[in-house]
């Protein structure tokens, strides 16, 4: 039985209990959220026990990291180090997007090593294997796609990005719109090319019930891939994107009715003044299903710093209701991230998520900031280190700093100390 079916039957699962304990919430509130589809708890029934996380309304905003080999760089050891770092940096989930080398082996390794929810994009493997077996991506068959999904589900993948919300209506809109950057989702591009070449509807849309059956069998959480996400701020909130969101809404309703956990993926490049409308539309059209966004990037002009453009967009989106932030690294638009880039991406996304939690009035978040402020007033460096977002980094940055009052500027009789005594904090 899936989490959502258990919740609807009034049953509290161990996964719901763990989520409630982490979030300091009544477990019935979690159960109700899962039953209504406003909360998902990605956890494949084949997967070992791990640190589950709840994603959705009323919960702390979660952060997702991406790892995986590419055809240019297939360094499994480096990916393993990234995985270890991602966990140490308190990411709530990660996706293995491997497209190079032994894809099955990499996925199984990740599922084995990771202690957090693991996601994947099965169409990548289907497409790459189609090149080997059939000579091209467009030679891929519908069976290839479902085989990859079934295989990955049976391996224990907890959530899958699947681009079902792409059909010919959406593509026609896209062609009518004249975008700056047409299709920037890799999975979306594979499928668009496949559909146009084969003159066939997207099998993941057309055979959606078949997909739901597989997902239900393993309780894989469906993450409706955003095939049509804007790749430049100029393309944000255009007709194609909205058509895709409308289709996603229909599919969310069907998944929820079938007892499959479902969330929706979102953009992408979004100017700040579009963020609130984007989130509101998703919540309205998709029956308040959790929203999983990539960024959002507040401007197109900062390659090398897209972890920062994404922190801006992610914080804003989180504050108005996005539930799950996929990190963006400084290497975005330029290449495959190194471990250092992964770290920068994770921290930036966590800052955005935390800033949004504060804006939403999350009590645990406020308590942590209050304690940090107190540690600063007390000049308690150890507390400042342990409360900071990256304690290891803070420890080494502090180095030999000594916070005794010894500033050489104003001498022993310091005016700031007089003021501090007056306020009782000296």
């Amino acid at each position, binding site marked *: 039985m899936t989490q959502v079916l258990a919740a609807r039957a009034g049953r509290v699962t161990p996964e719901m209990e763990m989520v409630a304990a982490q979030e300091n919430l009544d477990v019935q509130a979690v159960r109700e959220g899962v039953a209504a589809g406003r909360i998902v708890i990605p956890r494949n029934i084949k997967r070992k026990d791990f640190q589950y996380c709840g994603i959705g309304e009323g919960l702390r905003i979660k952060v997702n990291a991406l790892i995986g080999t590419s055809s240019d760089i297939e360094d499994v050891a480096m990916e393993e180090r990234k995985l270890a770092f991602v966990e140490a940096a308190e990411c709530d989930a990660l996706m293995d997007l491997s497209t190079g080398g032994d894809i099955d082996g990499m996925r199984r390794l990740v599922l084995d090593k990771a202690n957090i929810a693991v996601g994947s994009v099965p169409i990548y493997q289907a497409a790459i294997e189609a090149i080997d077996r059939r000579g091209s991506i467009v030679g891929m068959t519908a069976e290839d796609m479902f085989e990859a999904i079934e295989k990955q589900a049976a391996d224990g993948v907890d959530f899958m990005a699947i681009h079902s919300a792409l059909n010919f209506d959406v593509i026609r809109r896209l062609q009518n719109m004249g975008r700056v950057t047409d299709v920037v989702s890799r999975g979306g591009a594979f499928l668009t090319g496949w559909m146009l070449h084969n003159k066939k509807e997207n099998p993941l849309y057309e055979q959606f019930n078949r997909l739901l059956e597989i997902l239900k069998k393993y309780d894989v959480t469906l993450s409706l891939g955003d095939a049509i996400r804007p790749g430049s701020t100029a393309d944000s909130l255009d007709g194609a994107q909205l058509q895709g969101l409308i289709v996603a809404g229909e599919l969310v309703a069907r998944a929820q009715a079938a007892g499959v956990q479902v969330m929706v993926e979102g953009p992408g490049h979004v100017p700040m003044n579009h963020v609130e409308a984007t989130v509101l539309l998703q919540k309205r059209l998709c029956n308040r299903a959790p929203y999983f966004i990539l960024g959002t990037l507040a401007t197109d002009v900062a390659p090398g710093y897209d972890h920062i453009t994404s922190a801006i967009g992610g914080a804003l989106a989180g504050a108005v209701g996005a539930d799950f932030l996929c990190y963006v690294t400084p290497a975005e638009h330029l290449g495959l991230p190194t471990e250092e880039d992964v770290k920068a991406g994770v921290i930036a996304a966590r800052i955005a998520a935390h800033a949004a939690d504060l*804006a939403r009035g999350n009590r645990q978040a406020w308590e942590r900031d209050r304690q940090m402020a107190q540690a600063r007033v007390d000049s308690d460096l150890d507390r400042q280190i342990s409360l900071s977002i990256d304690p290891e980094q803070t420890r080494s940055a502090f180095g030999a700093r000594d916070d005794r009052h010894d500033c050489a500027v104003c001498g022993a009789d310091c005016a700031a100390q007089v003021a501090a005594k007056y306020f009782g904090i000296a």
Partner: protein
Amino acid sequence: MTQLSKAVKGIISPEMAQVAKSERVAPEFIRQGVAAGTIVIPHNIRHRNGASIGIGSGLRTKVSASVGVYADTDSIDTEVAKIKAALEAGTDSIMDLSVKGDIDAMRRENLAAASTPLGTLPYYQAVSEAAQKYGTALKMDVEALFDVIERQAADGVDFLALHCGTTMSIVERLKKENRLDPLVSYGGSHLIGWMLHNHRENPLYEYYDRVLEIARRYDVTLSIADGMRPGCLADSLDGAQVQELVVMGELVRRAREAGVQVMVKGPGHVPLNQLKATIVLQKSLCKGAPYFVFGPVVTDIAAGYDHISAAIGGAVSAWAGAEFICYVTASEHIGLPDADQVREGVVAARIAAHAADVAKGLRGAADWDFELSKARKDLDWPKQIALSIDPKRAEYMRKTRSDDTVTGCAMCGKYCAMEVVSRYLGVSKVSC
């Protein structure tokens, strides 16, 4: 005559014309903004080599980088290197916040080096000189403070940050507020200590007309600094902060009446959901005077990464109407920034400023994004890199994260599937 007095008289000065040109607006638009006080052009009549920039409503959001001699390891050379890094990274102005050493020499060096407006905080030097003279800054005398202000203005400093609004009644309010962190601003803390020790009103408030007189003589733009800047989220928008903003509003009015250009400094640590209210209050109480915000950071826990926290706060503030962003570096709350952190801090602030300009629909702002996205779609790497906010960094990252001889990038490798889709959509090349 100050820019403000000229503008009120209907004169379009060469500085206004220069600002109009760089902002691509009509000179008359600038003149009206300067006359109304919603635009300032910090340009001391004695700072000959400084370019004129406009800060205010309807203009591109500007950023400022702070340097200065603070520690024994700092020297004029280390700080000049930071200024170079900041200018290279595209800062619109520099603040020299030196608190020790030969502060006069440092400032004069900066004025010679900076092609941008330069700001200072004279109270720091007054503290330093009083400590040298008397062994304690508590004995600073008011004449010496005004002497420093006059000296800095006469040297050609373009804008002076002064805590004119931190009055005794606000200090008392602060005590009642039970703030978690009552003392955050370095200058403000020393000023408050002096006031409490000597049982005297803030001289910058008491003799505000004297401040205005000096500012007017050299056309120094006044940057009224906030002694009540919140130093943690929990203290944001409390009574002390808001009361100081009320007083600042009065001081803005008096400055304008005296023909002195004026802007207002702002926080600080502000939760995301209070940023808009903070800006709206400043705009209302200070009659549209430009708002110069420090960050703001949106969480207290991002030590080591406060340039990112500040980019979030700066972007949202500027979108809501703040016109001038003081950068925050990764070393904030930890120590002093090195040249790399200065550079990164400037770029983060510029990203925030630009994202806000796009969100506000500032004319021309989105063109930059459009051009870069077109180059991205065309897989035109030289153009993408040239259009990047920090071309050197983009180029380095591309070289080290991809094999830069390929058309796509190592993220997708040979599955740069955009090439698949582009064939069918009838366009030549598409990329993420």
